[in-house]
């Protein structure tokens, strides 16, 4: 639809845009990205014709764009920019009806019935109808931008050029606005060319992106272009981490600030407190730890400061255990958004804490174990639905710096340590009567202080991985023995 061939241009003699080739298909949402000063706005103005081309060619549907008259161009291309200043007290409806300018005919230039139909329609879609008679300057910034969008859509363009249309909008209005655009793109085949500041918004909505750097495209491609951290760091000079959006398969970028965290950790052994009573175990650190877990709450990889293990009745049954845990935490003044919560029927006083120090890495494991539900994961028995709470809950704290991969490695190492302990203690799956590999509801977390050099591995081939395995093995074995002791005492009494 829109095609740029070797476009060169800018202000005065030194061109800001130094040779751009681009072809935008009909119905495509193209996002132009790049830092301030990279030439985004200049390129935009070269396309709209506000700046003259010094070299090259811009054409729309095969016809050179400068050869269009202003009216012809306005019938095909509408522009929405970031400014929203309108002089005098025009009403919203009057502003939107200006979008019909290129379509008006006749000597008196009155708005025809068809014009009004279009205006009504775009007001409906942009949800601006309710304030159509209101003065433009009286409505909020987000509403103003919607009105200007309505005006642009009233032009019935084939292509929409957007210059940071959501620049000073909050996220609600930003998403409303671009959702609306996306809908028009998908339903009416509108072609969209947008300068976007927010890379994450671009990733969520654009079909393709172009990364502009010093007046040239560094890369033009689909949104996975945004996964190239090196490239983005070069262009934006900011440390960038690419992650996937948790629910849709698109990249999202996380920026790391340059300033240094001032409150340093001191000694690992002094950086936390443990509170243990009948109802719960609560470890609180003075800093958040990078944590991977399968706790009832706080699962996945997060930064966590509070680690909790709650005691529940043996026959505890609840369809929403996470809600219960949050309620309990609230009761005990533990902030549940920064906490991992586990639950167990084991007596909490049987908690085992093991520590180990190897070179300059400290490891600590906190384990509660009950093996009433011991399971051999390889047995042919079906998974048990009527889960009783007899479980091994393991928390491992490490004073080291792990990458995300190392966290997963660490989980493997800890699991291997646990399994080995159960095997050495000859614990059996009561159904299959084979050696058990765990219980049916084991929880595990690995929390790392992220101090020192970053390690990419924490498997059994590494010092720290081995250490994790050893500590977990030792703590699990001790905890199981404590459990046996208590069961025996109970049997006798």
């Amino acid at each position, binding site marked *: 639809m829109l095609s740029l061939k070797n476009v060169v241009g800018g202000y005065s003699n030194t061109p800001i845009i130094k040779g751009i080739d681009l072809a935008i298909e009909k119905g495509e949402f193209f996002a132009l990205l790049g830092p301030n000063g990279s030439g985004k706005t200049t390129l935009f103005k070269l396309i*709209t*014709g*506000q700046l003259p081309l010094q070299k090259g060619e811009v054409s729309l549907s095969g016809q050179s764009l400068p050869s269009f*008259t*202003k*009216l012809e*161009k*306005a*019938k095909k*291309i*509408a*522009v929405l*920019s970031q*400014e929203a*200043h*309108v*002089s*005098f*007290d*025009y*009403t919203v409806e*009057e*502003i939107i009806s*200006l*979008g019909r*300018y*290129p379509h*008006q005919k006749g000597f008196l*230039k009155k708005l025809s019935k068809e014009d*009004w139909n279009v205006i*009504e329609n775009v007001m409906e879609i942009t949800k601006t109808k309710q304030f159509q*008679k209101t003065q433009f*300057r*009286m409505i909020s910034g987000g509403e103003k931008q919607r009105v200007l969008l309505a*005006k642009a859509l009233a*032009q019935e363009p084939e292509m929409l050029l957007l210059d940071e249309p959501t620049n000073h909008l909050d996220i609600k209005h930003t998403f409303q606005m671009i959702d609306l655009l996306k809908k028009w793109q998908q339903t009416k085949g509108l072609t969209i060319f947008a300068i976007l500041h927010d890379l994450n918004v671009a990733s969520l909505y654009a079909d393709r992106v172009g990364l502009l750097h010093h007046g040239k495209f560094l890369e033009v491609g689909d949104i996975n272009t945004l996964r190239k951290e090196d490239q983005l760091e070069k262009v934006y000079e900011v440390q960038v981490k690419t992650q996937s959006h948790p629910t849709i398969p698109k990249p999202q970028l996380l920026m790391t600030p340059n300033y240094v965290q001032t409150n340093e950790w001191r000694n690992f052994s002094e950086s936390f407190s443990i509170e243990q009573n009948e109802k719960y175990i609560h470890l609180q650190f003075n800093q958040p730890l990078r944590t991977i877990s399968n706790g009832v709450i706080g699962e996945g990889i997060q930064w966590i400061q509070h680690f909790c293990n709650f005691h529940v009745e043996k026959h505890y049954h609840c369809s929403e255990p996470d809600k219960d845990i949050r309620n309990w935490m609230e009761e005990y003044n533990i902030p549940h958004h920064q906490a991992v919560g586990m639950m167990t029927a084991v007596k909490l006083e049987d908690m085992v804490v093991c520590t180990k120090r190897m070179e300059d890495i400290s490891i600590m494991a906190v384990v509660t174990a009950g093996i009433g539900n011991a399971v051999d994961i390889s047995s042919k028995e079906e998974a048990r639905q009527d889960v009783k709470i007899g479980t091994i809950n393991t928390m491992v704290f490490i004073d080291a710096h792990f990458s995300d991969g190392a966290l997963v490695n660490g989980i493997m190492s800890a699991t291997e340590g646990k399994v080995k302990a159960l095997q050495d203690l000859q614990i059996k799956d009561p159904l299959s009567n084979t050696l058990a590999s765990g219980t049916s509801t084991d929880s595990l977390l690995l929390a790392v202080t992220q101090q020192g050099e970053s390690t990419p591995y924490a498997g059994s081939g590494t010092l720290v991985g081995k250490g994790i395995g050893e500590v977990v093995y030792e703590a699990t074995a001790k905890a199981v023995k404590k459990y046996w002791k208590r069961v025996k005492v109970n049997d006798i009494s």
Partner: protein
Amino acid sequence: MQNSSTRKFSSKKFVWLYVLCGGFVLGTALLGLLVSSVSVPIPTIFHIIFENTINMGWLEDIPPNVESIIWNIRIPRVLLAFFVGASLALAGAAFQGLLRNPLADPYTIGVSSGAALGAVIVLFFQINIAVLGGYTLPIIAIIGGFVALLVVFGLVRLSSRSLAIETIILAGIIVSAFIGSIISLIIALGDRDSMVQIIYWLYGSVRMRGWSHVQLIIPFMVTGTFILLMHFRELNALALGEEAAEHIGVNVNRGKVWILIGASLLTGSAVAVSGSIGFVGLVIPHLVRLVTGPNHRHVLPLSMLTGGAFLILADLVARTIIAPKELPIGVITALIGAPVFAILLIRERIGKGAK
């Protein structure tokens, strides 16, 4: 549909507004013809008008001196007041729309001064360019106004990139002051008689002008009005800013040039026939906008009607308030216009503050 009904309602409202303004014009015109030292009954006035226009009189025995007073003195005076007022108000509305600036008018942005300088030069040096004939005065005045406008815009361009409201007004004041001093210089160089004559002319008046001046203003006024009314949509679009106006298909540069030409024609010819009369172009469009909203489709014609009627009224006051002597009409418009404008300014401020 509720909407089409409200739209019908609003278009009905505008019909009534036009009727009202038209009535206001006719009423003030009649008043202007009626009120004077020599009182002539209304039927006689109508008779004289019809007799002289479509040759359909019905009364006998009208003394020729009465006929002469009405036809040769009062009617041209009222018409001239109407044309001047309409021209200035329309030019003011156009300047305000073009510059997106409610403070703009032929007076504040220096066009009136430029036109006045042109006119003073013609009057003082008795210039008569043969090709232009009797139209030397208005044409030189229009050119003077246009040149002043270009100087003001040049100053604004040099001092700031945007057409900021304050900058335009400041540049207008600077240029006006400079031109004023040149006019003073010319007056100072002249003799006492021409000094009085020019000073009185500068205050603005539609007195003792006769049909010749009406003929002088009509072609320019018709052309200027036509040009401006043709560009009401462009004026509306310019409210979005020049770039945004381009994007909806407006040829901004061409539109701007036409609007400036139209407004200069109106201002220059008005100044040429009546001297510089302030505040009409500033206040009238403001008042009209309060009632109609800013849409230039209605602001332009209604400003014309209201401005014309207002000037007829101002002239009436000017010649009756200290009769038999006359005040310059510019004094009246300033006396009424300045306080009204001050009130409008304060109102606007309060309105914006309350937002």
